[in-house]
């Protein structure tokens, strides 16, 4: 008996952890090495001079603006949808869910092409918008369209998982205590799913900041940080990407940090 439990304990203590440590270690190393080699490059490049370029500053402004708008839009439209998907069953729900994750599995360039077929300059929607003075391509509005399309699924999928984890009986209790469904969402479901919703918002923002493929298709101008980086890379090679790439990294990490701090989001999984 004691030999058996002793063996069990030894197994769970060491050898069972050995395999994930080895396998995960390879992955972590693979994440880490390019990061370090890239940072080592900063010595060769004049970061401050690169960031002082008017083009770089415009790209940073554009990215911050468009990614923020895309995140707000995705959150405003996506969180209620996530709640409905977590709570209700209805005909065609699977189809709807498939549609929500479609942008996640679609190559961003294809997403961009699809957006162009819907709102491009010579489409009915695109020409109508252009007629009232809103250009859906080659504009910051176009950037927002591309970023929202590609990044919104993150907040929907993550928030949906968060709402699904909230015990439905708590919402029933709230209803029986006199609160309408909307108030119950506001006071019970949303606060309890806050961690997941904020995680989704963060992922969406990070994805929107980094969005390149669809953005380049829909609005290669005005430049965002990723499209500016691409142009710089073509013009001047790897070293010329370093300043804005560092800025992109810094801004994204800063926002992640701030949101996590205010939301107190546990590392990856909520509780």
């Amino acid at each position, binding site marked *: 008996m004691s030999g058996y439990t002793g063996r069990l304990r030894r197994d769970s203590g060491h050898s069972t952890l050995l395999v994930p440590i080895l396998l995960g270690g390879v992955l972590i190393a693979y994440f880490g090495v390019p990061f370090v080699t890239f940072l080592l490059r900063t010595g060769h490049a004049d970061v401050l001079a690169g960031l002082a370029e008017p083009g770089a500053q415009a790209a940073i402004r554009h990215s911050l603006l468009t990614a923020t708008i895309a995140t707000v839009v995705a959150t405003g439209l996506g969180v209620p949808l996530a709640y409905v998907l977590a709570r209700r069953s209805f005909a065609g729900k699977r189809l709807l869910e498939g549609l929500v994750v479609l942008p996640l599995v679609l190559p961003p360039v294809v997403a961009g092409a699809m957006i162009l077929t819907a709102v491009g300059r010579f489409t009915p929607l695109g020409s109508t918008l252009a007629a009232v003075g809103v250009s859906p391509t080659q504009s910051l509005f176009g950037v927002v369209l591309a970023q929202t399309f590609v990044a919104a699924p993150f907040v929907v999928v993550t928030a949906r998982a968060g709402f699904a984890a909230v015990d439905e009986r708590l919402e*029933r209790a709230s209803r*029986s*205590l006199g609160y309408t469904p909307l108030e119950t969402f506001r006071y019970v479901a949303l606060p309890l799913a806050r961690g997941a919703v904020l995680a989704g918002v963060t992922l969406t923002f990070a994805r929107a900041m980094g969005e390149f493929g669809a953005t380049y298709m829909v609005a290669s101008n005005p430049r965002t940080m990723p499209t500016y980086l691409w142009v710089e890379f073509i013009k001047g090679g790897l070293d010329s990407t370093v300043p804005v790439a560092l800025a992109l990294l810094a801004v994204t990490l800063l926002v992640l940090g701030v949101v996590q701090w205010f939301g107190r989001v546990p590392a990856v999984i909520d509780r």
Partner: protein
Amino acid sequence: MTLEVDGLTHRYGNEPALEDVSFEIDAGEVVGLLGPSGCGKTTTVQAIAGHVSPTEGQVRLRGRNVTTDPPETRDVGVVFQESTLFPHMTVGENVAYGLRPAGYGPDERAAIVDRYLELVSLSDQREAMPAALSGGQKRRAELARALAPQPEVLLLDEPLSALDRGLRDRLREEIARIQRETGVTTLYVTHDQETAMALADRLVVMNDGQVAGVGRPRELYESPPTPFVASFLGRSSQVPVTPPGDPGLTLAARALAGDGGDRPETDVTCLVRPDDVTLDENGGAGEAHALSGDVARAVDMGTHYEVRVELDAGGELAVETRAEPPQAGERVVARVDRDDLLLFGN
């Protein structure tokens, strides 16, 4: 009448859950809704609270038909089987939660929270988070939260089932006290007949989605309307009944004869409570109101002995006795008072 449930019928898809359930609760009354798991108790409660829309039938509160009203307009307090305290609010905030929609201002709310926390002896836990409470404290906090807005009806859905026995008994006393002090009209749902009999002024016994009996606990126990109620409220053994003339079954035969004449063709079910039987080691079969048999086993239950008698006429009779019991294998005669027989025409 504070609450009337009238002809409630509900199906989940094609699965029938409730079949024509009707009962009423008077102001200040405690009614126990009693029945085995899956008999439709919880569906009934959900329909009263408004979390389930019944397929047919009506729920009326003070004469007002609320069947299609949403839960938030019903003025019905609910305590669920599992804890539903909001984990992101303190105990005090939980108790105050229902007071804002009820229209109380901040000062009134604070005073009411004080009063109800005191009522359930949780004044010291006001600032605690629910996760820090014990199982019993959670139940009391939920009771306070449900009572604070002063609902017309309080629904308690198996509030003690998840607790261990000692705590359950103590909380049962406490619920009885709180109910007396507040006078709130209460529907107490449980599968535990002991709890139901201890707390309720009246019982509604449910079986298989239907009402099997309604009445005062003592009445239902002593003269149950159906064999189901008899077997669910307390224990009983079924005694075989065959037409009179069979010497082994004089008990039932005589009982029937005493019940108003010779009805040999009537199909009858006869039940006997274990504590209504006395055992006698002497005396022959054929005696009035007596059944003979062999003792199958006798078990010491601490407060009494539990004896199982294998009847000559077939079947087994459970007997509760405080006297030294006969040994397994001994011949015995079991006697039952005529008035204690529970007879049901099928």
